[in-house]
């Protein structure tokens, strides 16, 4: 046995060596000194090739079978789907409006015959091929429609169920004939789903082949690996016929905690993050993020609102719904939530910002804090304030219960503000927050709520408001309790207008009908829009390329054009 002093000497040397090894390992990949770049929101002339980009992803998708119920998470689209699934149309920002443009999958704009029946003929780009070299053909369109319209456990069949047939007169021509006219047809074979490879999947169990990731691609990237709970790794698709990626590899690392996500961004372990607009995130941004570019935008596909149950007391009263609109200072709410991000104005329509070309963006603008108006509207409807200061009618107080997703700090903060403001107006408000699965899976469809605070997120450039507000979509036994009109809005004048929005093929006809419908919905205050849930883009100055937001496909939509310095 060695003497203690000698052993501790060895110990010190061992510790020193270990520390040096760690420092050496940390410095090992150090390259040239970092240089501050200009804002990377414009495309640079030369994008470097090579390198691995690591990105922090807040949520792991549950599965990669994009049409299945398990694939509802946006992060699935942002990490894998958008980069591997070919789409017939791209959503692009043109002069401030988000519009559909034919993608490089097509030879140009498809031919539309208004009909009836409505017929769309797609001409497929002969250069378009899957990663295994097989051309993308009309059979792939037919297979995609068949799976979505007739498959099991499909997340959303909207539009595809209106198709009567897909004919394939030649490999590069797909003729889609609709049973019912469908105004949002440009969102089909793209949008949230894309086109599936029939030569790989036909006759097989699609879900089994795709749910854990797949090896084929029709986009700029291929999924190299999906290590569950850890990361998704993408590598360039050598057979992509568009702009090939500059980077060697992109790794999405799953970092579910917002606070750690920001810490990891600060340490440089992840070079880009796309955090939810939670109070933690806003506070972290205010705290400063060195060597980072930041961009915030309210031009999103999100709309957070107070969704009233129009069939339940006290919200079965139009006067109460209107009075709530005049009781809240929505400007103050938005300022409190997102003021530091420069988002200060509330939403005044029930369509998200990316659909502004369809909607009346000032339909709800009359609802501003006005306690005198609250008194006059409520009194005219027979309500009176009791000795406790709260409104009551026929001995029944207009108490309000708000439900939202438990644990969501932004929504809990919103509830607190609303509680205070409504109390001042004479409404007693309680909160009863729920697990997301219970709220969206059970309680809202069953009408077991008075007010729900949550967001509607659009996955395509189509209002699809009939699903939310047409009386035929109130969940009933007749529609298998699957209608999405959880607010139980039942206004006969609105139904034909929103049906026109769904079925008309002309944009201006659709927009006119939508604007008229929004006016009526606003007058009845069936729900009260609050804010657009801004998108937050944070990226390292090491990233070279045009970094901009895409409201459906996130800030990573064009990362095939990015490089690293």
């Amino acid at each position, binding site marked *: 046995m060695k003497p203690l002093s000698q052993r501790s000497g060895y110990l010190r040397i061992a510790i020193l060596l270990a520390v040096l090894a760690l420092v050496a390992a940390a410095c090992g990949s150090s390259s040239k000194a970092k240089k501050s770049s200009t804002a990377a929101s414009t495309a640079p002339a030369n994008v470097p090739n090579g390198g691995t980009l690591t990105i922090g992803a807040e949520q792991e998708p549950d599965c990669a079978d994009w049409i299945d119920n398990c694939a509802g998470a946006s992060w699935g689209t942002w990490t894998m789907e958008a980069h591997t699934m070919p789409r017939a149309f791209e959503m692009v920002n043109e002069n401030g409006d988000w519009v559909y443009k034919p993608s490089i999958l097509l030879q140009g704009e498809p031919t539309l015959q208004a009909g009836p029946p409505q017929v769309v003929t797609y001409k497929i780009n002969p250069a378009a091929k899957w990663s295994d070299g097989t051309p993308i053909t009309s059979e792939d369109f037919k297979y995609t429609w068949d799976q979505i319209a007739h498959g099991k456990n499909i997340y959303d069949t909207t539009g595809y169920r209106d198709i009567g047939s897909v004919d394939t007169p030649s490999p590069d021509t797909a003729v889609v004939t609709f049973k019912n006219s469908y105004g949002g047809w440009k969102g089909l074979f793209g949008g949230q789903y894309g086109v599936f490879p029939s030569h790989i999947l036909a006759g097989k169990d699609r879900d089994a082949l795709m749910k854990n990731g797949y090896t084929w691609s029709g986009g700029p990237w291929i999924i190299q690996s999906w290590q569950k709970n850890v990361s998704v790794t993408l590598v360039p698709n050598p057979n992509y016929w568009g702009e090939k990626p500059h980077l060697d590899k992109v790794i999405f690392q799953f970092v579910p905690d917002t606070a750690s996500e920001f810490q990891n961004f600060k340490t440089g372990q992840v070079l880009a993050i796309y955090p939810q607009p939670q109070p933690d995130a806003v506070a972290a941004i205010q705290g400063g993020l060195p060597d980072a570019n930041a961009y915030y935008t309210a031009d999103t596909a999100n709309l957070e609102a107070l969704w009233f149950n129009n069939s339940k007391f006290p919200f079965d009263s139009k006067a109460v719904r209107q009075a709530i609109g005049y009781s809240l200072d929505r400007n103050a709410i938005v300022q409190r939530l997102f003021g530091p991000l420069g988002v200060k104005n509330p939403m005044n329509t029930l369509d998200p910002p990316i659909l502004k070309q369809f909607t009346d963006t000032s339909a709800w603008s009359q609802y501003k804090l006005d306690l005198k108006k609250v008194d006059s509207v409520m009194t005219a409807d027979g309500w009176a304030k009791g000795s406790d200061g709260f409104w009551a009618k026929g001995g029944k107080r207009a108490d309000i219960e708000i439900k939202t997703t438990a644990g969501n700090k932004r929504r809990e903060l919103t509830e607190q503000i609303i509680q205070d403001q409504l109390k001042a107006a004479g409404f007693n408000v309680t909160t009863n927050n729920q697990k997301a699965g219970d709220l969206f899976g*059970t309680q809202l469809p069953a009408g077991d709520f008075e007010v729900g605070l949550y967001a509607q997120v659009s996955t395509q450039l189509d209002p699809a408001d009939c699903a939310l507000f047409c009386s035929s979509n109130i969940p009933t036994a007749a529609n*298998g309790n699957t209608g999405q009109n959880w607010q139980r809005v039942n206004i006969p004048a609105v139904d034909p207008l929103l049906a026109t929005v769904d079925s008309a093929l002309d944009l201006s006809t659709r927009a006119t009908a939508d604007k008229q419908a929004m006016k009526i919905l606003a007058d009845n205050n069936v729900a009260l829009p609050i804010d657009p849930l801004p998108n937050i883009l944070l990226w390292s100055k090491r990233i070279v390329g045009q970094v901009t937001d895409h409201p459906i496909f996130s800030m990573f939509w064009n990362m095939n054009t990015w490089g690293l310095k």
Partner: protein
Amino acid sequence: MLTYITRRVLYSIPVIFVASFLLFAFVRATFDPTAHLRASRTAAEAIKSERKRLNLDKPTVVQYSDWLKKFVRGDWGTSERTHERVFAMIRRSLWVTTQLIFWGVLVSALLAIAMGVYSAVRQYSALDYTLTGLSFVALAMPPFWFGLIAIQFLSADLKNVFHLQEPLFYSIGLHKPGVTGLNVDYLRHLALPVMTLTVQIVAGWGRYQRAAMLDVMSADYVRTARAKGVPRRRVIFKHALRNALIPLVTVMALDIGVLFGGLIITETIFSIPGMGRLFFDSLLRGDATVLVSWTVVTALFIVLFNLLADVAYGWLDPRIRFS
């Protein structure tokens, strides 16, 4: 000793049955395994067939019995959230958590024993007061706060101070994507989560060890050994420490059992895909099939480590097994 162990094992069997039934019934009453199908347009039909497949229309006891038979055979069902086999999900998460627990317990035990012995032997010394004070500070520090502070100082700030391209200590996962094995990358990933995990455990176990050591140091047989001229170091490590470890070993065994399901915060902060993360993700998404198996597996670990605590106690102190 064998009789003692057999008796303890037999006691554990009904505990496992009762615990697993209660957990099964509780999860079934709280979560609906068909909730994920409600968004579908074909919900009514899909829910009906899924309820039939899962025997949800039968009494809970029958459901439990069916579930238990499959559970024993390793058929733990399929996750409603990911469509993955639950057995594979739990096995994967368990391996990750086991690594964290192994390193955490190893480091904690060494530090806690060293601190406890020193504080007891040098009672009321400056270092004893310092260690006692630090223990209280550590016990008062919530792991989520400590973890984030550790990332800030030991990862972000160190990187900036030394102008490193990468941080010295990582804070995402146990390896870089694509890297495996016991290597420098692993150690750089392990350092901060193990530190976060151990800081409170060391403080707690250290206090235990100190109290046990003080107790033993004042025992007659220790005084006798000293009076007979046995060297101090030998008295401390050979005579006193062995007996003073008995209560700590019991506490350790009980704590380890709880850790298998109790690392939610550490695993969330450091994005480590272990049992805690699996529970948290499944709870948020109402994944009933995973939750049933997860709760039963963690309960099994608690029962198992309670059993080990009993056995260890009986092995270290013969009076227990003969009483």
